[in-house]
């Protein structure tokens, strides 16, 4: 066995975030209520420092830390940057809404812990660490969902928690079965053992494992919590729930597919392809006639998980899969957060009709909304278009042309419900909303829109950076 690497500096972004969360909690206990925003600032600084550290680490060759439990490779580095960047945007949209809230500090700390959980899931190379990451990502999120302590929030938190607890237990059961099958929990060891392990055992264990990871990703069949939790919680929390944990979960799924199951006896590609197809289709069907904007976006995120699962399905079979997934994750995160930032910027607008006349009142905000929603459809030149192009190409290349065709059909269908939102927003008639709004959230929306467009136009260098080899 090689010498064990226990250098905590390899986990610098994670360490920074954890330290900032703990420090923030302590600091919050001593700060007067009017100055608790300092904790938020600290969190933002930790995110920025973490992004820098992750970017530096990304330039180094890939390595594993703490035995073989945690991998630092392009998948981890990209997830780190996307998760931390996403967290920064979430902090931005919640800054004004939570100003001088009695529990302002707690909010920032919980956001950081949830993000930390997503980071651990993305880098985990050991099933037990994955389970720990799952719990770390889940428990703060349950609390955040019910943070407002109102009726819908309580319902959201309860539903989220009950489903999360159930699927978490299933996941632990699955991990136990896989441990029994592979006599280990480290991915490389499992990959070795699964080459000729009994199919039924692997399948049982994998289904349990997938239940938990798909819960975090919000994909079919573990998607039932998404609409209620997103609609019930406050807009900034909804933005967090639909973005940050997904990144960790999809990175974890990709790693599982690429490292553990690529050569196993389990038909992993077919299994994930079916899940992808179900997710994109059912998410779209659910979104069709929604009136509440958060609920509409919630269903849209379910369908987006379907598209994101396409490269996961062909992990290890198509050269493009890794680039496609990582690029799409980044594009999705920033575009989805942009759309949610618009929702946060207009706290009084709940239904699609409330957006009527937005273009007249706030033309820039309306433009951001249109660009983000068309971006989610996959209209060029936004970044999601390039992500979809790569994902489609990867699916074709991996022998799943039917999945790409289905995704194309679903994309057309999705246009319908996004347009149901765009049309009132750009129409000139209708009662004009009193232009109360959250300025900080507005700027986040503009920033996310610009990044979403810029990432699409300057996709070349980004894609190159994502192509490095994954740890095995």
């Amino acid at each position, binding site marked *: 066995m090689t010498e064990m690497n226990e250098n905590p500096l390899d986990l610098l972004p994670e360490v920074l975030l954890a330290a900032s969360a703990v420090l923030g909690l302590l600091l919050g206990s001593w700060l007067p209520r009017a100055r608790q925003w300092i904790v938020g600032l600290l969190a933002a600084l930790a995110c920025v420092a973490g992004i820098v550290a992750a970017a530096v680490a990304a330039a180094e060759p890939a390595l594993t830390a703490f035995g073989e439990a945690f991998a630092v490779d392009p998948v981890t580095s990209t997830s780190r940057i996307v998760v931390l960047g996403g967290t920064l945007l979430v902090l931005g949209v919640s800054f004004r809404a939570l100003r001088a809230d009695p529990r302002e500090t707690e909010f920032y700390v919980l956001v950081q812990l949830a993000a930390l959980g997503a980071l651990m899931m993305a880098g985990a190379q050991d099933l037990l660490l994955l389970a720990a990451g799952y719990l770390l990502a889940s428990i703060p999120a349950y609390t955040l969902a019910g943070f407002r302590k109102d009726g819908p929030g309580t319902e959201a938190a309860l539903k989220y928690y009950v489903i999360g607890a159930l699927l978490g237990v299933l996941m632990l059961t699955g991990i136990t079965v896989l441990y029994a099958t592979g006599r280990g929990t480290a991915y490389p060891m499992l990959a070795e053992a699964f080459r000729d392990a009994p199919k039924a055992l692997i399948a049982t264990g994998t289904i349990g494992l997938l239940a938990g990871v798909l819960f975090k990703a919000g994909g079919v069949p573990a998607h039932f919590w998404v609409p209620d939790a997103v609609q019930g919680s406050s807009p900034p929390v909804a933005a967090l729930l639909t973005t940050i944990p997904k990144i960790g979960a999809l990175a974890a799924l990709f790693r599982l597919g690429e490292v553990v199951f690529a050569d196993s006896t389990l038909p992993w590609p077919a299994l994930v392809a079916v899940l992808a197809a179900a997710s994109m289709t059912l998410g779209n069907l659910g979104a069709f006639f929604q009136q509440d904007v958060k609920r509409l976006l919630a269903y849209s995120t379910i369908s987006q998980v379907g598209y994101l699962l396409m490269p996961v399905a062909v992990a290890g079979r198509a050269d493009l899969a890794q680039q496609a997934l990582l690029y799409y994750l980044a594009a999705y995160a920033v575009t989805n957060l942009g759309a949610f930032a618009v929702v946060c910027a207009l706290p009084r607008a709940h239904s699609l009709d409330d957006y009527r006349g937005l273009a007249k009142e706030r033309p820039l905000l309306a433009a951001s909304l249109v660009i983000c929603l068309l971006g989610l459809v996959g*209209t060029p030149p936004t970044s999601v278009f390039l992500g979809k192009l790569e994902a489609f190409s990867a699916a074709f290349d991996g022998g799943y042309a039917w999945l790409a065709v289905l995704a194309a059909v679903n994309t057309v269908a999705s246009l319908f419900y996004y347009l149901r939102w765009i049309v009132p927003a750009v129409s000139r008639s209708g009662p004009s909303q009193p232009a109360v709004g959250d300025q900080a959230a507005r700027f986040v929306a503009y920033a996310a829109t610009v990044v979403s467009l810029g990432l699409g136009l300057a996709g070349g260098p980004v894609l190159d950076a994502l192509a490095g080899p994954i740890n095995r």
Partner: protein
Amino acid sequence: MTHLLTALVFAPTAVALLLFALPRRTTPTVFRTVWVAASAAELALVIAMWIGYEADGGMQYEERARWIPSAGVGYHVGVDGLSLPLLALTCLLFLACALYSLRENRRIREFAALFLFLETTCLGLFAALDLILFFVFFDLSIVAMYFVIAGWGHRQAARAALKFFLYTFIGSLALLLGFIGLYLAASPHTFDMVELTEQNPLAGRSVYGALVLLAVVVGLAVKTPTVPFHTWLPPAHVEAPAAGSAILAGVLLKMGTYGFVRIAMPMLPEVWRRYALVLVVIGVLSVLHGALVALAQTDFKRMVAYTSVNHMGYIVLAVGAAAATADSSEQARSLAVTGAVTQMVSHGLLTGALFLLAGVLYERGRTYDMAAYSGVAAVAPLFAAMTGIAAFASLGLPGFSGFIAEFQIFTGSLGPRPLATALSVLGILLTAGLFLRALRQVFTGPLRLPDTPGTPRAFPDIRAHESLAIVPLLALAVVLGVAPRFLLDVIEPASRSVLELLAR
């Protein structure tokens, strides 16, 4: 100047952004003036490019830049005999629309900005030499046109715009799947059109090739549109504002047919030849269906819209017939392709003019219903004369551009596909009938004007800005009908090279 083409493509969008930089309280006149000036400058630029173009020089004004190399995507644009006429047509029609809209008052800044952006997407599409670049402009043109129809259209505009968006978006995704198929078949993987044309990556792979061709043809056929994918067209045209209809019919429809000669024929020659008969059949069906349904219309604008289906059918017939190698001379087939490109230009000019004239009619009478009008020639002789010229040119009377185009198409297609060509000639007869009927209804007889409440009673003759927009289109149609050589000299070498590529 090496970046001439890029400047041509992106200048309108730059001007559009400039319009938004102007303060909100700027008078509408400024916006209109900037719009007209920018469109005129674009036309001047494209004329300069035409003058500098060498007819036998192949691809010219070519520019390449790295964009997304790891995805096989590059910025690659260029001009040849297929694209130059369409670029010029685009610039001319956009100038006509800018002039026509000199009286437009509803949110003129947004209207002008959208049209300028739309001009970029159209020019970019015809100049693109990379499939993804082509696709980007293809999709953006749909988005921009959606907002034109939904924002400035008539009563049912929202529904028509949605239908337009969904249909053409389905087409664009089919196209994207086809492009990915081409990309993965090429080695090294690339989206570059020139390289794909050289490689002919699907040679000898009949099933794969057929599926890719199916995806590409469906995508382009929705846009063209041909039967049975044409159902989005009539509502979109009827509900769109006049300038929007003119661009939609004059330029956007050409994107489909341009795709056939630029992408499908040179990149998939083997399968194209095998399935060309299907296209011939679709072409004939479009010709006859379009003409017959147009004959049944009472709404002037809807009638013109259906004649577009008919006219685009001739183009599909020509590109299908060109593939039939059976005992026809090289020259005859070359005639068919040249005729197809000429028809694109001719149809753009004439339908553009007809839709603008329909807009004039609506602006006076607030209805397109032909039965509501009678004897209009007495009060508006110039308007009547222009509509008459446009209608006669559109039905293919000698002396106009439509005749040159259709004559070449029929001569070129008659050898390889005699039956289909004979059936298509019936289309001309039908169009002649329907145009004459419409002219008789609206312009002759005792004077009668629609008198629904709120409509102005007077029917003023064509105004200066309207004739400034329409007369050049008709004049050019006459010039092309009398002295078409300057256009044909540009198209013919390019169409010969398409046929060489097709014969591989």
